[in-house]
């Protein structure tokens, strides 16, 4: 079964600073990968997904970007953080049965 590692677990960053969140996957190869954001009091919003190395699709216009430099590595970035970027960021991939996602443990980002 797949395991997703995310780090860091928590992050406090000033407005205007850069961001890099990393997600790595074990136990599968060439998975679809997803970045979701959970803002306070809101559900999960799909930000990006990738079906392979170097391929990124963005679901919503935003201040963030994503990259997939390796098969099992997915990175979420920003050049200049905004207050509105605060939230809980989750990386996910499909499980052994379609749509049964495996999630990472998430990164809590607070922009101050």
């Amino acid at each position, binding site marked *: 079964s797949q395991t*997703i590692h*995310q780090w860091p677990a928590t992050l406090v960053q000033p407005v205007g600073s850069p961001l890099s969140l990393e997600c790595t996957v074990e136990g599968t190869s060439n998975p*679809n990968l*997803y970045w*979701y954001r959970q803002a306070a*009091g*809101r*559900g*999960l919003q*799909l930000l990006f*997904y990738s*079906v392979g190395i170097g391929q990124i*699709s963005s*679901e919503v216009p935003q201040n963030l970007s994503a990259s997939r430099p390796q098969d099992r590595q997915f990175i979420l970035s920003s050049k200049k953080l905004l207050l509105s970027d605060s939230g809980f960021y*989750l990386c*996910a991939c*499909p*499980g052994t*049965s*379609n*749509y*049964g*996602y495996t*999630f*990472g*443990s*998430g990164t*809590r980002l607070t922009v101050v």
Partner: protein
Amino acid sequence: AQSVTQPDIHITVSEGASLELRCNYSYGATPYLFWYVQSPGQGLQLLLKYFSGDTLVQGIKGFEAEFKRSQSSFNLRKPSVHWSDAAEYFCAVPHSGGYNKLIFGAGTRLAVHP
């Protein structure tokens, strides 16, 4: 377009009481349906899923859900809640854009009183 509505933002129940969390969906065809649970500060865990067949689906941790096509609902139930069930619960349907993308509801936060 697909959507998922969870009408209850917060629910509080007493330990040992029964529980029903509501989920309504909008989808062009018979959907796949999912319930996930999120413990505080953690990722999400799949509780159960409906693909086809029996409309009453059994999941982990004693949860079940019933698919009702006529009501476009997929409500989650548990006959007797335990304090450890306190968490946030999300209903989800597939995104029409494929690629195994999911659309999640806003979530229902469950508190359990002793």
